[in-house]
């Protein structure tokens, strides 16, 4: 009895018979959840006031940025504290391309192009910058890469502070607003007889962008490129031996991550209409890292949950005035509580559940089901930190 057949036979024989394979079909539960979300979104859209739209829109934008960071750090294992920098690049590209033409030498530059140009361009320029940074990830690993990305934030800050023609210098500047025809999103407009608020218009732009990005990332992660990313995170040398070109993989991760980060940055700046260069600081980068640790690294849903927690929750607390806003005189403000909370949660999650909230949920699901459950992305949300720094033992021992 032979254990194997010659290669070639399996392919020819079995392909016709099998239409779907595990890992390719999404389970029924995923469809149900998606359906609930769609209904909830529609309900929200009709019912909510503009203050709630502010909370939700900003959270969705943060979710996009968190997703971008997850691509680079969660899935591919490249430590980055420079996320704020890439978002800023996107924002200022949007400002340069979409801003109004300067009427005086001191005005910020702007070419007054439509959003259909500046929004993708924001992503593309950020991606190009990411492509410049990418090669350093080949030479530097772990902590060193993290420090270089940290340096990026400071160098970026210096550049933005001084490039006042584009950034407005330290006072900051306004950012372009998307428009359809003469309807600019910063005011109420009527479309086909329906009156939409500013928040609603932005929502209709931001949500599809987020959904498209999520689907794209999810597709990548369940195919060849995504497996290569995760292999790079887990064990670079081993991945290399299996045929993964480390340069291509890391560059791909940087490109995709920076692209999405740039778009998120542009959307954020546009929606909040006025941003100062100080905003794109190390704290912002850290908040995104916190978001993917808390939500779940290497997970699309984890990015959303983490962003909701780190960026959405403080706005909700503010909204209900549960705590006073920061006053500078001490006392617990809403921002302080949230910061304390995510600081503590980083520690707690890393200690007890490195898979973040998604990991927790998965654990409960397994308890209920008594066997492993996997989403179509192909695996547990991995620890962001499953880096190969010390996994060289197999080559050492004889």
């Amino acid at each position, binding site marked *: 009895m032979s254990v194997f057949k010659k290669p070639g036979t399996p392919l020819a024989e079995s392909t016709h018979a099998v239409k779907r394979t595990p890992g390719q079909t999404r389970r029924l539960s995923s469809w149900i959840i998606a359906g609930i979300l769609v209904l909830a979104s529609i309900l929200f859209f009709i019912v909510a006031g503009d203050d709630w739209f502010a909370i939700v829109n900003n959270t969705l934008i943060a979710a996009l940025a968190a997703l971008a960071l997850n691509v680079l750090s969660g899935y591919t294992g490249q430590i980055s504290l420079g996320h704020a920098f890439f978002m800023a690049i996107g924002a200022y590209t949007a400002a340069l391309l979409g801003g109004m033409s300067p009427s005086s030498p001191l005005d910020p530059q702007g070419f007054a192009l439509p959003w259909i140009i500046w929004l993708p361009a924001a992503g593309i320029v950020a991606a190009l910058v990411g492509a410049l940074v990418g090669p350093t990830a080949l030479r530097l690993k772990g902590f060193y890469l993290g420090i270089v990305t940290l340096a990026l934030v400071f160098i970026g800050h210096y550049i933005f502070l001084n490039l006042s023609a584009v950034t407005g210098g330290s006072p900051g500047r306004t950012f372009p607003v998307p428009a359809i025809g003469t309807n600019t999103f910063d005011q109420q407009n009527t479309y086909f007889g329906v009156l939409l608020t500013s928040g609603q218009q932005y929502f209709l732009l931001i949500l599809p962008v987020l959904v498209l990005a999520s689907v794209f990332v999810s597709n990548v992660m369940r195919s060849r490129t995504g497996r290569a990313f995760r292999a790079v995170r887990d*064990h670079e040398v081993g991945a290399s031996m299996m045929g993964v070109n480390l340069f291509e993989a890391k560059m791909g991760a940087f490109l995709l991550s920076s692209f999405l980060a740039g778009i998120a940055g542009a959307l954020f700046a546009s929606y909040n209409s006025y941003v100062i260069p100080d905003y794109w600081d190390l704290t912002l980068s850290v908040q995104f890292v916190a978001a993917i640790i808390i939500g779940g690294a290497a997970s699309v849903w984890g990015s959303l949950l983490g962003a909701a927690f780190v960026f959405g929750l403080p706005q909700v607390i503010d909204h209900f005035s549960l705590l006073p806003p920061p006053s500078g005189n001490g006392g617990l403000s809403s921002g302080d509580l949230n910061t304390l909370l995510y600081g503590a949660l980083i520690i707690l999650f890393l200690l007890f559940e490195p898979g973040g909230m998604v990991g927790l949920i998965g654990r409960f699901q397994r308890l209920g089901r008594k066997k492993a459950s996997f989403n179509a992305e192909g695996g547990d949300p991995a620890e962001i930190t499953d880096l190969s720094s010390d996994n060289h033992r197999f080559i050492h021992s*004889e």
Partner: protein
Amino acid sequence: MNTSSAETHPAKQIASAPPLLSVEDLSVRFAGVTALSGVSFQVLSGELFAVIGPNGAGKTSLFNVLSRVYQPASGRVAFHGGDLLRFKTHQIARAGIARTFQNLGQFPSMSVLDYLLLGRHARMRRGLLSNGLYLGSTRREERVNRVYCLHLLDLLGLTRQSALPLGSLPYGLQKRADLARALAGEPRLLLLDEPVAGMNTEETEEIAAMLVEVQEQLGVTQILVEHDMAMVMGIADRVLVLDFGRIIALDSPAEVQAHPDVIKAYLGEAFEEDANISPTLFPDPGQ
């Protein structure tokens, strides 16, 4: 499973074909340590070739050169007619070399199926954009390759575990999954790094049987680094013995077991001339 090597082996019948792998005068040095020195040997296509030696002998360094992780200080390596030393690490998979891991736990969160698909990375082509948009070409490629890998899992008895993360599997199954992954890439040459380390007799026999099947059914050439002498002597066509980075013997299992230098390397000089010792050093593979 009959693992006697005395029976006709496919390897013996193709000794006239040009060697698949040819190593000439290989030397590896790092940090003042000479790991390999003047190593030369050839591996024939379809052969099951074993490399043994005491710890520190240079076996892993040899594998590291063959998988292009190390650059040798000197020497030549020809593989399938080409200069292997000009290959970069990520190019060996495409060329048809696959390597299993000695220690496990490198990819704990990947599912078994994904791991095998990773093993097929070099055999697949679709890139970032096509994957992200999940175009028809990606769809087809994924489906075809998934089916192939599922079939391979079936052959190796791992179907039930296909969706489980590697880290959750018991040790023996992880080793088996690793072997499956190496085979998934349809290699010409399989480098097996201690495939039965830490296994009990039953598991060892299972793997040994699989390796023989791989040789007989798939015709894949194998180079095996192992410490389990009974297993090695039972299935190998030829055995290379390394000690302190040099070759001290290269011959059939029977010859190697009786070789005085080999005995000396493992047991020390006192036993060199005591012919009664050697049978217990290498237990009878017929057991």
